[in-house]
């Protein structure tokens, strides 16, 4: 007989919530045995490759595929003319627009898909791409959204009505032929009045440049049409496999039960793999046409040039305050560059995502936001790169505006924040732009952060540095970057969140096996977040079986329950909640089984870590393992055999993680080189499921923030040529450029989430970008700088110093 374990030992044995459980995914990844889409090989598989436009705006006069077709090993070359009879030369976008699958008479951005070559191997396909002759006639190029709104050049003739009329777009009336939508939130007149009457108003144009999520694995798929049984299997890098299945069914006409979408291991997503791309449609068509599997995998240049950019928001802001620094109003007008097609990945009712979280962590009584979406000759996309929908833009905007207001008020930026934070007792807090913040304790987090870094000491050191600089004793300035961000994640309540009409609930289905182990399947899909580890921890705590005995499976639409996938930090808030709720259904049935076995009434037993005990008689119990077996071997009156549950969770609200970050940076005025001396990140993501994984997410998100703030961008020249199309030009930091981060936390659980968790994956990016940028701006505050645009690469910083007259 084993020694009876204590309650604490039994809890530890489960490996449940709150412990630093090692990842179950790592065994295969460390041995090179991951299974990514490019690892998939099917018998007879062909390879697809695109002919792409070298021009940003041009008519396609003719396409000659003869030479390509004549090449040995080429099986097919598809053009829009081949797809048109099937109605597949255009496809719907997630934003209610449509996008060319293959160039239909014209191209709208450099790299646009013009023809799709199918060949026996990737070398022959690449050779054949070179042999396709396309004649273009160049058209005027518009790369600036402000110019596009003034231009006579029509980018989208397909959206024009009879006689030059301008029909409404998917989000209402359009003001100009290159205009997509206007989205307004808040009180325009009231905000204007507050600004007019304010003691102090700070105004600035804050541009958040275009960048790209650039996961290390590019996008790709393997489409396999089995003509014998009519089933299509589509493996691919999909962050939302079920949504992809529905989209494929809607546009192909294949019934949904005949489509199986599988997301295998995914080599990072960061928003890049949410959308549906022409490569997927062409591969499916090619497989249907050829009757064999077809693989398409982007190269890096294609990835950066064509699939899913992020940001490109020109945010014109005004913020008003009393002389004492109490913020009274916020006004924002954003001009959003959406590229040639509106393919933004946002919930249907939010064409600018959750940009209306731009009041941030502050109690701002009156606010107004308007966003104008505009077509230009750039790639479509507009995904949320490691953030919830447009939340990084919002956080960057407000955290820059607060810093600029501090300059206007001649106040310390930390103090300005403190006097404007939403107070703990104001939660749930109704924001002026329509959100209900669930919970927060900003003052506690802020004070903890400032104390941890010795904020007053840093300011004293900085002041001394400025003196030394002026005295010619140093050429290095010191910047202190501050940020207090509030995220909005966990989309979302079905009442206001859907994508293509699909409610943004999520799901979990659990099967307990007779011997007390289990499998749980979810509607989400991990891309490195460690779901197989953490969701098992949630379940271990909820159902009292060890995490090591629970398999988590995602990404196969034939087996997983329907869900909207993983992005926008929604997995823990939504699917994590579904997991807990499904676990509670298991527990409820287990309680009845336990009561039967213990010969007492249901109400006389209670759950205790890994068992049900008779109330007041803890020596009488049945373990969950025993109960699992009983579910399969006992005929219990009134109870069905088996132990399974499914939960579809429709969240009542979003969750609102927050954090307080401080960055200390030295800047060499003569070279523009930045040295991050210290970075402190305090995150409050509510209940913490696995502190090791949270810390890893914070490190990664901060590093992606560093990249965006300090150098990463998708830049175009005036001809619409992408200037940053390879990793030679597109900045991805290496170990050499990245500092060690200090992580910290407070815990303010979400009151509406079953386990109080809020999600964390994107917080460090949302908070990190303004924090790095604020540090750069702050370094030059003493020399009169109000605002300088990202990315703060060495050249731009040098230029800022030069413009401020710091080079003598």
């Amino acid at each position, binding site marked *: 007989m084993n020694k009876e374990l204590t309650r604490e030992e039994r809890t530890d044995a489960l490996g449940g919530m709150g412990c630093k459980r*090692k990842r179950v995914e790592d065994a295969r*990844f460390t041995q090179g045995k991951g299974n990514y889409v490019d690892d998939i090989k099917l018998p007879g598989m062909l390879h697809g490759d695109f002919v792409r436009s070298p021009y940003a705006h041009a008519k396609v006069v003719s396409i000659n595929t003869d030479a390509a077709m004549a090449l040995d090993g080429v099986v097919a070359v598809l053009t829009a003319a081949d797809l048109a009879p099937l109605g597949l030369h255009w496809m719907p976008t997630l934003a209610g627009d449509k996008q060319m699958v293959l160039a239909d008479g014209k191209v709208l951005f450099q790299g646009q898909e013009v023809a799709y070559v199918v060949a026996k191997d990737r*070398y022959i396909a690449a050779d054949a791409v070179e042999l396709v002759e396309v004649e273009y006639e160049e058209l005027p190029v518009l790369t600036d959204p402000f110019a596009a709104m003034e231009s006579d050049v029509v980018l989208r003739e397909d959206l024009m009505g009879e006689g030059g009329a301008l029909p409404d777009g998917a989000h209402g009336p359009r003001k100009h032929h290159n205009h997509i939508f206007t989205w307004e939130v808040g009180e325009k007149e009231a905000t204007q009045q507050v600004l007019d009457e304010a003691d102090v108003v700070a105004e600035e144009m804050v541009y958040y440049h275009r960048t790209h999520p650039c996961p290390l694995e590019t996008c790709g798929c393997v489409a396999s049409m089995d003509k014998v049984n009519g089933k299509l299997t589509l493996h691919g890098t999909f962050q939302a496999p079920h949504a992809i299945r529905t989209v494929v069914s809607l546009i192909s006409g294949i019934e949904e039960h005949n489509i199986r979408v599988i997301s295998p291991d995914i080599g990072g997503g960061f928003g890049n793999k949410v959308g549906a791309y022409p490569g997927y449609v062409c591969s499916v068509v090619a497989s249907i046409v050829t009757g064999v599997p077809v693989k398409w995998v982007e190269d890096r240049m294609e990835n950066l040039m064509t699939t899913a950019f992020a940001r490109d928001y020109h945010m014109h802001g005004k913020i008003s305050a009393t002389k004492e620094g109490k913020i009274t109003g916020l006004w924002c007008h954003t001009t959003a560059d959406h590229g040639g097609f509106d393919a933004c990945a946002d919930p249907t009712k939010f064409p600018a995502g959750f940009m209306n979280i731009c009041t941030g962590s502050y109690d701002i009584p009156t606010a107004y936001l308007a966003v104008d979406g505009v077509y230009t000759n750039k790639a479509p996309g507009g995904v949320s790169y490691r953030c919830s929908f447009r939340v990084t833009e919002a956080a960057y905007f407000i955290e820059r505006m607060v810093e600029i207001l501090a300059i206007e008020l001649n106040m310390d930026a930390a103090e300005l924040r403190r006097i404007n934070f939403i107070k703990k007792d104001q939660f749930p807090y109704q924001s002026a732009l329509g959100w209900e913040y669930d919970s927060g304790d900003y003052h506690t987090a802020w004070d903890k952060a400032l104390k941890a870094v010795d904020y007053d000491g840093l300011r004293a050191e900085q002041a001394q540095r400025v003196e030394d600089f002026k005295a010619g004793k140093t050429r290095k300035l010191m910047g202190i970057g501050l940020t207090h961000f509030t995220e909005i994640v966990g989309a979302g309540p079905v009442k206001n969140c859907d994508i293509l009409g699909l409610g943004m609930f999520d799901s979990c289905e659990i099967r307990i096996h007779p011997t007390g182990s289990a499998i749980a399947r979810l509607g989400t899909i991990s891309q490195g977040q*460690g779901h197989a580890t953490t969701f098992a921890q949630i379940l271990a705590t909820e159902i009292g079986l060890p995490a090591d005995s629970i398999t988590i499976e995602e990404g196969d639409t034939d087996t997983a329950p329907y869900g909207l996938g993983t992005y926008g930090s929604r997995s823990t808030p939504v699917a994590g909640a579904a997991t807990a709720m499904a676990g509670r259904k298991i527990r409820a049935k287990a309680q009845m089984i336990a009561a039967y076995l213990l010969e007492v009434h249901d109400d006389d037993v209670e759950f205790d870590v890994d068992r049900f005990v008779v109330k007041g008689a803890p020596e009488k119990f049945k373990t969950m393992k025993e109960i699992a077996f009983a579910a399969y071997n006992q005929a219990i009156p009134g109870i069905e055999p088996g132990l399974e549950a499914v939960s579809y969770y429709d969240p009542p609200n979003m969750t609102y993680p927050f954090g307080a970050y401080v960055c200390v940076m030295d800047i060499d005025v003569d070279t523009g080189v930045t040295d991050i001396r210290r970075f402190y990140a305090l995150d409050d993501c509510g209940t913490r499921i696995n502190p090791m994984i949270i810390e890893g997410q914070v490190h990664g998100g901060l590093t992606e923030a560093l990249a965006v703030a300090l150098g990463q961008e998708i830049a175009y020249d005036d001809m619409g040529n992408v200037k940053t199309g390879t990793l030679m030009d597109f900045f991805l930091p290496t170990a*050499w450029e990245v500092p060690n981060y200090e992580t910290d936390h407070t815990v303010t659980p979400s009151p509406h989430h079953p386990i109080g968790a809020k999600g964390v994956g994107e917080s460090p990016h949302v908070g990190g970008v303004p924090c790095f940028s604020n540090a750069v701006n702050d370094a030059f505050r003493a020399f009169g700088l109000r605002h300088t645009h990202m990315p703060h690469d060495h050249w731009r910083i040098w230029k800022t110093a030069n413009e401020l007259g710091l080079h003598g």
Partner: protein
Amino acid sequence: MSGKKHITMTVNGEAQEFLAEPRELLIHTLRERLNITGPHIGCETSHCGACTVTLDGKSVKSCTVFVAQADGADITTIEGLGNPDSLHVLQEAFKEHHGLQCGFCTPGMITRASKLLEENPSPTEEEVRFGMAGNICRCTGYQNIVKSILAAATEMNAAKEAAE
């Protein structure tokens, strides 16, 4: 393209012999021809290091090596570093210290780290960061990768000392 070339090489201790177009990239030889899919393709320009293998004792990016250049070479990939019954110290260390997330860079990262620790068995943190700068990770921010490599170095040195 005609003119296939006769190639021999040793990959993870196994002799390989085949005919290939000289322009075939080593990463495709490994992944497509030999079904060694641990090394991945991330950039095709030698920047990301997902395709890192050890070729005749040096870390190389196999996405920019022609198979003709690798004729006669001795190559080690992640598959040659450990096996399920006996993981390499680095493989254990990456697991232990959460040195990976999506796993896509991991094979190249560990393969490079193994070579780094051969070149410099007791590196400082700075030397690890410099020595690993040819391998990009988008998920971890490197902090735990560096920690994993330093921990592995300590463990390997302790094991060596114990053996002496």
